[in-house]
Structures are given as structure tokens and as C-alpha cells.
């Protein structure tokens, strides 16, 4: 898997993990917060219940105390007390009782009582609001309480059943003048003074109620929820719940938690929730009221107690949910936005990738394809990118070199680009198509980096340069043709010049020879003088030929290692005598200087030519010619500006000749190397042609810098030889006075040359045999082969040339010794005879010294 994809997938997983973690954290925090809120909520609710419960107890106590005091104020009132005692008398009349009634009536109603009784110790009613109640017996429950009170203190009863109703009584003992308990003053509490009224104040909210129960758990105050109890079958319709309902868990014999624990301590509470007498879950607080012998219980339904908490919780969950949903929506729309951007980005990238004519593909670090554009597929011959994706591109398209030899992936420049983090460019290799064919490519490989700067692969861009190559080849061909044409043109000029010069020389030779032949008898001395002029003319012709060969770059070089500085020093006297007056040479010669391999004579000729030209450029005025030698490194760019025959970049020793003369314009500079181009009245215009030829022949370079009116600088660069050889004298040895003997056959189609050779050989002591061509030579050789010690043969002849003749001669006698002569230089002439045991070679024109040396080597001895 590519690193980028792995990284993206890892980022996705990490993102999801972080979101999940955030969710869990939010849930945990919410849960803890809600728990805390619930705890505080319940604490607050219980505190409220406590407040209500204590307030109820307090009110009840106050009310009881007030009522007892009120009752006592009556019994302590002397006239009333007297009337009460009178009523208790057996003989009490109705008017006494009516008087008591009249006196108590308005007080009763004004103090919240509804009735009164004077009760005998035996439970009979001595007086009351109703005359008709006279003499009746009170209910058993009341009678029990009356007995209890008779010898004690005032007592507030619980609600006691009275028919279908309940009544609460305040019982106060009545004492006679002697302090004897004679009866009980019983006040009936008005409903507004019942426990119920006070307990009703302990109701709030929708479920909070405060109620009183007796020791058995019977309700002493009406339930707030009588309708509910009736509906649940716990209470008969039309009945009060007081004394009719017990605070038990419905459908069980179990008291409610509050009732079960009301006597455990003075007060208690349960905030966790327990089953109330209605069956629902309630929280409650309670206390045992010893004064009233009852428990005061305040309860709230858990639903209401936690209502606020539940609302908060729901709101919080809603907020959380909303937050999550909106977060999800935001994340989704952001992801959509990102995708859209990415898609647009991809579309743009694809458009760019697909619209470009260049082929582009991507590689990961394993060299596998990560993408490829249409141009790439088209050039490689694939249908779709899927065929390339994930495949090793080197094995697919770069497995072999152009010649079919395998291409190691480790050496592949594309893989080097991402391994070495560098940009690579190559135009010497080929890519292989799907069909197995290859094509030359020019490609660039750029490494790709991720955000942290690590290489993740590379992008390769390539072009099919088949057409480019064809065009280059065609251009080269055309250039060669042009060069050929130019050479032919040059040859034309050259031939004309040669013809002209040779005509002059030949005229001199012809004239002198004719004069000599006429005077050879009459005036041998004059004839000898004429003949010497002939020889001089021949020497001039020979020099001319050497210059021609030098121009062609194919002159005979006597190559040896030499020091340019030393060479210049050697020719200084020659240079100085050729200068005009007023011109001086300034030398600046480097020492030591690396050796070069060159023909010393030609080097001297070059320097002489350059100095001569410089001298002439100064044109009679006084001036300085600088000759400088040195060593330098010349790169290709430098060499591009030089004249020469594709010199190779490297170290060069140089000699620089510079003058402050008239200089040259651009047109002149372009033509100075053309043969026979001259700006002088004298001279043949071959000097600079020869210089360039010599430079070419030595694989050197010639740098020209010239400005009209300022001067000219020529810089001759010659490659430094890599290994210094011991200086070897390769010069032509001095001719020893060697004399040969035996028969030598001279084969040449030109009679003058043939005769000259015969003459010279005979002068050496040989006997000669002459043949005009190869055929004739073969016939003579067949006839007199045994005698012939050597053959001097021209290379170029009609009918049968030297080469064929040589083969035939060798067929007749493999040991035949043949010395070849030719106008061409030795390398060109004898290259077809390599390994054929050529006895020797003499370059024309043949001088007596060279002939003697060659013959000596050929026949030995």
C-alpha cells in the first residue's frame, strides 16, 4: 500500500477514534453532571419537605396549646365554671343549661369550636348545645378518652368516628370547689381546627402532601388523593379517608417505609424512594409527634421530585443530541465541501494531466505505478490506467537497453531519482511498449515529497523522441552534404590555386631544363646552374605539396613529445630576423609546461605563420608581438568558440600570439582559413589554411580574437599528453652512404618519376628494371623474378594498381620485397597493406635520401 494511502487511512482511523473518544467523554461528563444534579435536586426537595414537615408540626403544637389555653380560660371563668358545675348536678334545670348554652354559643363559634358537652364521669351528657342530647351516653371511644382525662390534664383527641363523620375533641377536666374531678368539659373542634386544616397547608406542587397517622398507620388527616384512592378501591365513594385508609403498601400487609420507621427515631427521611400508600414511588420525611401521639409524614412523588432534574436531563440530552447532530451535519457538510474541493482539484489535475501531450506517470517507492495519463497509455500502447496501476513500471517499460541488453533496476535513473532525492533527465534510453517494440525517449523524473519532507515516490514525464531523432539524423546528413559540397567547392579553389602555382614552378623547371639540355654540351657549367634552378624549383614544388597536405590535415607528421615553450625558444632567432624594424617580440613562456605530442616542424611552421601575420598586421609601425605559453583546462563551451576538428575537453598546453595591429573585421575572420584567401599582395593564401590543417591534424584547437584597429590574438591549444615518454628522436636519420646491389624493379606509370627513380637507384648501386604498370610488372616478375631483389612500386597506376599488383607478386613469390611510393601520406597509402609485409613506403616526391633509407631497410644489409 502506498505510504500516502496508508497515511490517509491512518488519519481517518485516528479521526474516528478521536470523535469516539470525544463522544465517550461527553457521555461520561453528562452522566456525572446529571448524577450530581439529581443529588442536589433531591437534597433540595428533601430540605423543602423537612421545612414543610416541621412547619406543620409547629403549627399543630401551637394550635393545640392555644386551644388548651382557650378551654382553660373558660373553665377558669368563675361564673361559667359555676354554671358547668351546676349542669353536672343531678337536679340541674333546663334554664341553667340554656344559660350555659347562651353564654358559650358566640364564644364557641368565634373560637373555631362547633359544639360542647359537659360529660359526667360515667359518660353521660350533662349539658350540650342540643337540649335533646341531655342524658345521652357519649360514644365508647370518647368515653374512653373522658376516663383518661378525668384525673389528668386537658387532652386533644385524634379524630374519633361519629356516625359517618369524625370529630375531634378537646377534653378538659372539671374540678369542683374541693378540687375533685367531677366531669369533663368537651369541646368539639370546628373543621377549621382539625389536624386536616393544618396538614392541608403542607400541600404544594402537584403531589406533595403532609398527613398524620396514628400508631397503627391509620390516616388522621384526609388524603390529598381521595379520588385516586376511590379509583384504586382503597376508599369507598363518599367516605373520608380519615381513619378509613391505612398507610400500607397497596395489596400487601406491609406498612409504608415511613410508617415502618416512624417510631425508630424522632425523625427520619428517605430520598431514594419507597412505595407510598397509593402504590407509587415517593420520597418522604417524617417525625413522631409525642404531643399528639401521631406521626407527621410529608411525601412527594418521585416523579415530581425529579421533575426538574428530568427536565434538565432531557434538555441536556437534547442539547447533547443537538450538538452531536449539528456537529455531525457540520462535519458532513465540511467533508462534502472537502470532497467537492478535492473533486474540483482532481478534475483540474486530471484535465491538466490528460490535456498535456507529454506522457506522465507516478511511481511509489517500490517502483509501482500510482497514476498514468492518457498520453502515457497511448505511447505505451495500453487501454486503461488500471492495466498499469500497482505494477512495476521498470519491469514493464524500462527492462532493457536499446540494444536489448537487460537494464538493472538498481541502475535505472528513474529509481535513482527517488532514491537520491534528485531530478533526473535522460534522452539516451528507450521505453518498451506493450507490444514489445521500443522507442527512444527523453524523460524527466522528479521525486515527490510528503508534508514532512519524506520521499513518497516520483513523477516521470516523458516524450517519444523517435521523430526528433529522425530529424536530427536528417539534419546531420544534410550538414554532411553541405560540408561535402563546401569541400568540393574548396577543392575547386584549391585545384585552381595549385594549378596556378605548379604552372609557375613547372614553367621555371621547363625553361631551365630546356636551357640546360641545350647547353649541356656547349656550356656544362651554365647547364649545371640551370639544373640547380630546376632542383630549386622542385624543392619549391615539394614545399607547396607539403603545405597542401598540411591544409588537408594529412601531412606526414613526425610526432614526438615536445615542450611548447622550448619549441618557441628554438625558433626565436628565425622569428626575430623576419620582423620589421620597430616590431619586438615579448615572450612570456611558462616553465615547466606539460608536454604535447606534435610534429615539431609543423608547430614551428604554425608559430612562424602566426608571427609573420602579426608582423604584417602591424604594417611597418612599431609594435609588440606577445608570445605566451601556458596550460589551461578547456571545457566544451570554450572549445565551441574555437576552430578545430571536434577537440575533446581537457587539459591543453597553449601558445598565444597576440599583436596590437590592424585587427580583422568579422567577414575577414570568417574567411582567413579558406585556402588561397589572402589580404596581401604577396603570398599564396595558404598560410592560415595550413595552420588550421595542422591544428586539426593534432586534435588541437585554435582560438581567434580580433577587433578591427585593436589587434588580433591567436591561441593555439594542444592536448597535453597523458604519459610522458622519454624523448625520442624520431627525426629522419642522416643518410648514411649506403650502397645497395642487385636487381630492383621500378614500377610507375609516370615516366619522369620512373626514370628519376631508376637513375637514383642505379646511383645507389642497384641494377634496375622498369615497368609502366602492374601488368607489365607482373610479366617482368614472372620472367625474372628470381633475380629481382626488390620492387619499387607506385600505388596509383592505370590497368593494374599497386595494390593488386602487390597481391599478384606475393602470389608468385610470398617473400617479395615491395617498397611503395605514393603522393598520399603513409597512413592513408599503406592501410590496405597492413599485415602484408610491405617492405617500405616512400612519400612522393622521392628524394635520394629517403629512397636510400627505404631501400636499405627493404633489402637489408
Amino acid at each position, binding site marked *: 500500500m502506498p505510504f500516502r494511502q496508508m497515511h490517509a487511512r491512518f488519519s481517518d482511523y485516528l479521526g474516528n477514534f478521536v470523535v469516539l473518544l470525544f463522544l465517550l467523554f461527553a457521555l461520561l461528563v453528562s452522566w456525572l453532571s446529571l448524577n450530581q444534579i439529581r443529588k442536589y435536586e433531591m437534597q*433540595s426537595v428533601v430540605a423543602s419537605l423537612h421545612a414543610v414537615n416541621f412547619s406543620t408540626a409547629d403549627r399543630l403544637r401551637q394550635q393545640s396549646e392555644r386551644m388548651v389555653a382557650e378551654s382553660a380560660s373558660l373553665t377558669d371563668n368563675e361564673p361559667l365554671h359555676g354554671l358547668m358545675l351546676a349542669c353536672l348536678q343531678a337536679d340541674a334545670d333546663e334554664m341553667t343549661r340554656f344559660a350555659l348554652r347562651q353564654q358559650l354559643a358566640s364564644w364557641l363559634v368565634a373560637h373555631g369550636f*362547633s359544639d360542647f358537652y359537659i360529660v359526667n364521669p360515667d359518660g353521660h351528657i350533662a349539658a350540650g348545645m342540643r337540649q335533646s342530647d341531655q342524658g345521652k351516653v357519649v360514644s365508647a371511644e370518647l368515653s374512653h378518652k373522658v376516663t383518661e382525662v378525668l384525673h389528668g390534664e386537658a387532652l386533644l383527641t385524634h379524630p374519633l368516628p361519629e356516625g359517618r363523620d369524625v370529630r375531634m375533641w378537646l377534653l378538659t377536666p372539671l374540678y369542683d370547689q374541693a378540687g375533685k374531678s367531677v366531669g369533663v368539659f368537651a369541646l368539639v373542634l370546628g373543621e377549621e381546627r382539625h389536624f386536616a386544616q393544618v396538614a392541608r397547608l403542607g400541600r404544594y406542587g402537584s403531589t406533595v402532601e403532609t398527613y398524620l397517622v396514628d400508631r397503627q398507620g391509620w390516616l388522621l388527616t384526609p388524603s390529598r388523593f381521595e379520588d385516586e384512592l376511590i379509583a384504586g378501591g382503597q376508599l369507598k365513594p363518599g367516605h373520608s379517608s380519615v381513619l378509613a385508609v391505612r398507610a400500607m403498601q397497596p395489596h400487601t400487609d406491609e406498612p409504608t417505609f415511613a410508617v415502618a420507621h416512624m417510631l425508630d427515631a424522632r425523625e427520619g427521611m428517605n430520598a431514594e424512594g419507597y412505595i407510598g400508600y397509593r402504590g407509587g414511588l415517593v420520597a418522604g420525611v417524617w417525625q413522631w409527634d409525642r404531643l399528639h401521639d401521631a406521626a407527621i409524614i410529608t411525601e412527594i412523588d418521585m416523579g415530581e421530585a425529579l421533575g426538574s432534574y428530568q427536565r434538565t436531563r432531557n434538555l441536556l440530552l437534547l442539547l447533547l443530541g443537538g450538538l452531536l447532530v449539528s456537529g455531525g451535519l457540520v462535519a458532513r457538510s465540511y467533508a462534502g465541501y472537502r470532497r467537492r474541493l478535492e473533486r474540483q482539484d482532481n478534475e483540474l489535475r486530471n484535465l491538466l494531466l490528460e490535456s498535456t501531450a507529454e506522457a506522465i506517470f507516478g511511481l511509489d517507492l517500490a517502483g509501482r505505478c500510482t497514476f498514468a495519463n492518457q498520453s502515457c497509455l497511448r505511447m505505451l500502447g495500453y487501454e486503461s490506467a488500471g492495466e498499469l496501476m500497482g505494477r512495476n513500471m521498470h519491469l514493464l517499460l524500462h527492462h532493457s537497453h536499446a540494444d536489448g541488453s537487460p537494464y538493472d533496476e538498481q541502475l535505472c535513473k528513474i529509481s535513482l531519482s527517488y532514491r537520491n532525492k534528485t531530478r533526473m533527465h535522460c534522452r539516451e534510453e528507450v521505453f518498451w511498449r506493450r507490444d514489445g517494440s521500443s522507442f527512444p525517449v527523453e524523460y524527466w523524473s522528479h521525486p515527490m515529497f510528503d508534508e514532512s519532507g519524506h520521499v513518497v515516490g516520483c513523477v516521470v514525464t516523458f516524450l517519444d523522441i523517435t521523430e526528433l531523432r529522425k530529424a536530427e539524423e536528417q539534419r546531420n546528413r544534410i550538414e554532411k552534404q553541405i560540408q561535402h559540397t563546401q569541400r568540393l567547392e574548396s577543392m575547386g579553389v584549391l585545384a585552381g590555386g595549385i594549378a596556378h602555382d605548379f604552372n609557375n614552378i613547372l614553367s621555371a623547371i621547363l625553361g631551365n631544363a630546356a636551357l640546360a639540355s641545350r647547353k649541356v654540351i656547349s656550356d656544362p657549367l651554365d647547364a649545371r646552374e640551370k639544373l640547380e634552378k630546376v632542383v630549386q624549383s622542385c624543392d619549391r614544388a615539394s614545399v607547396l605539396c607539403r603545405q597542401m597536405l598540411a591544409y588537408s590535415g594529412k601531412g606526414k607528421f613526425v610526432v614526438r613529445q615536445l615542450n611548447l615553450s622550448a619549441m618557441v625558444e628554438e625558433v626565436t632567432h628565425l622569428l626575430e630576423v623576419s620582423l620589421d624594424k620597430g616590431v619586438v617580440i615579448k615572450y612570456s613562456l611558462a616553465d615547466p609546461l606539460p608536454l604535447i605530442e606534435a610534429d615539431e616542424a609543423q608547430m614551428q611552421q604554425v608559430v612562424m605563420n602566426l608571427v609573420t601575420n602579426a608582423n604584417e598586421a602591424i604594417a611597418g609601425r612599431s609594435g609588440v608581438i606577445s608570445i605566451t605559453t601556458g596550460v589551461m583546462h578547456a571545457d566544451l563551451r570554450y572549445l565551441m568558440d574555437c576552430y578545430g576538428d571536434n577537440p575533446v575537453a581537457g587539459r591543453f598546453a597553449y601558445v598565444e600570439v597576440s599583436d596590437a595591429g590592424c585587427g580583422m573585421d568579422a567577414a575577414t575572420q570568417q574567411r582567413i582559413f579558406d585556402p588561397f584567401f589572402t589580404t596581401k599582395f604577396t603570398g599564396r593564401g595558404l598560410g592560415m589554411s595550413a595552420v588550421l590543417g595542422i591544428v586539426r591534424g593534432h586534435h588541437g584547437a585554435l582560438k581567434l580574437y580580433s577587433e578591427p584597429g585593436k589587434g588580433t590574438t591567436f591561441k593555439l591549444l594542444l592536448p597535453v599528453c597523458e604519459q610522458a615518454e622519454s624523448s625520442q628522436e624520431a627525426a629522419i636519420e642522416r643518410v648514411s652512404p649506403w650502397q645497395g646491389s642487385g636487381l630492383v624493379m621500378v614500377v610507375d606509370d609516370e615516366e619522369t618519376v620512373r626514370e628519376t627513380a631508376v637513375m637514383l637507384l642505379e646511383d645507389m648501386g642497384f641494377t634496375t628494371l622498369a615497368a609502366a604498370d602492374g601488368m607489365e610488372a607482373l610479366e617482368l616478375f614472372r620472367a625474372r623474378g628470381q633475380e629481382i631483389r626488390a620492387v619499387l612500386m607506385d600505388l596509383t597506376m592505370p590497368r593494374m594498381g599497386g595494390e593488386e599488383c602487390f597481391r599478384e607478386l606475393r602470389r608468385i613469390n610470398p617473400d617479395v620485397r615491395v617498397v611503395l611510393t605514393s603522393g598520399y601520406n603513409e597512413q592513408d597509402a599503406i592501410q590496405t597493406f597492413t599485415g602484408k609485409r610491405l617492405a617500405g613506403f616512400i612519400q612522393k616526391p622521392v628524394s635520394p635520401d629517403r629512397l636510400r633509407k627505404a631501400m636499405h631497410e627493404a633489402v637489408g644489409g
Partner: protein
Amino acid sequence: MRRLMLFLLLAGFVVPAQAEIVEVAGSTTVRAMMEPAADAWHQLHPDVVVTVRGGGSSAGFSSVLDGRAQIGMMSRELEPEELSLLQQAGMVQVRIGFDAVAVVVSEPLYLRGGIAALKKEEIAAIYRGDIRNWLQLDGPDRPILVIDKEKERGTRQVFAGYILDSTHGDSLPEAVVVGPNHDMKTLLQASDQAIGFLPFGETGDHLHALRVIDGGHHYVADTGSVRDGSYPLSRSLYVLHKKDAPAYVQEFVEFLCSPHGQAILRNSGYVPLQ
């Protein structure tokens, strides 16, 4: 923490509102219908709280006069001096219904003692102390427990105005004098020999109204006779307020006269305007 939560929860939703308070005081007779009417009005207008106090018709008048209440309740006609004060103070009197005063005896007398109708004179004699035993009226041999009300009570003034020929006519000194109607009811129920008087709406539930015989004509309290004024022991119920009282006060008074308010009045035992 909790306060903070509540604040956060409620901050966005609760618009703080200033509750308007309408203070009503006066006749306990009118109060019987005013309290449920106040509750009903508060249900309809949670921003208005109506507080109702008793104190009697005279207190109702004076409360509005001196500004202790915005609405006064009266269950009697204005005295002449009250009328002039009303005009001076820029107050208005609005009739909201009718009440009739019924003469009531303890249930045993009504059901078993044969006391179901009394002449106006007989009732007056009882209250003046001229008749002291039910036996004198062909009832059981029981002394008559006369229950009277405080003189300033509207009900008593209606009663005394007709029976004793003077709204402030005295009753016998031994009479048991009570304040609110509730006390009268308690005593009438507790006793088996008492006589008293109650607003027509308070009768029933063991409290039986006597037929009053006046000039041979038997008067029975019912809505028709009350509304048309033929029942002699009847009176109009009024509320008073200043003319420049705030709009929410006047709106409440209008509510009392509306069908909804009149229904409440009828349910409270009174006789609606129509």
C-alpha cells in the same frame, strides 16, 4: 449549581412579568362569590392577582374611599352620607346581583317541631324577647336561642330593616351575637332550638328557610321574587370602585357582570342580574 442550571434553562424562555394586584374588601356576603370569581379571573389573566378580604359592607365602602382597596363589596344600599361621599370621591357603584335573607331555624324545629312558617310579627317578637319559648309558637317546649348578627353586617341590616322596621333595630340582650354567616350556620346546625337568618344562598344543607308571612302573604325566597323585588328580605349586591381605577380593575368588574361572572355568582347561591 441548581440556580445556575435554572438560570440557564429559563433565561431564554421566561419573560419577567409584573403581576397586577386587585384588592377587594367588604361584605362577606359578596365575598362568597368574589373568591371563586377572583380565582376564575386569575385563571384567565395570570398576570392579575385578586385578593379578597371580608370586613362587612361598611368596611368595603370605607376601604375604597381611603384607597386600602380598589374594589369594595356591599350587600346593602348606600346610606345618604355614603352616597354623598361616593359622589365626592368620584366612585361608582355597580350592581352585580341580588341576595335574599332567609329566616332559618334549627333543623329539628323545622322538621319535627312544626316551625316552617312564621309571621313577620312573630319573628320580630322573638328578636325583641317577647316570645322566648318555641312552645308559644306551637313548637316544642324549648327556650328559643336567638342568634343575631353584628349590627353593621349587611345581612343583619336587611333583616332588621324589614323585621325590626329599622336597619339598626335592637334585639333582645340575651341574643347570641355572631359575626360571619359561617358562625351563624354553625350555631344553627349545632343547636336544636335556635333561630337566625342567613343569606338565601347559604340555606340548604340542614338549614331550612322559613316562609315569612306578612299581611297574610307568604313570602318564599326564590330568584324570581328576589329579582323583581317582591321578596321583602332581598337586597342588591354591589361593588364600588373609583372612576379612575386602573383598566385591569374595571375589566375585573366587567367580568363580574359578564355571563361567566354571573354563573359564578349563581353557583355561590346568589341571584344573577338576569
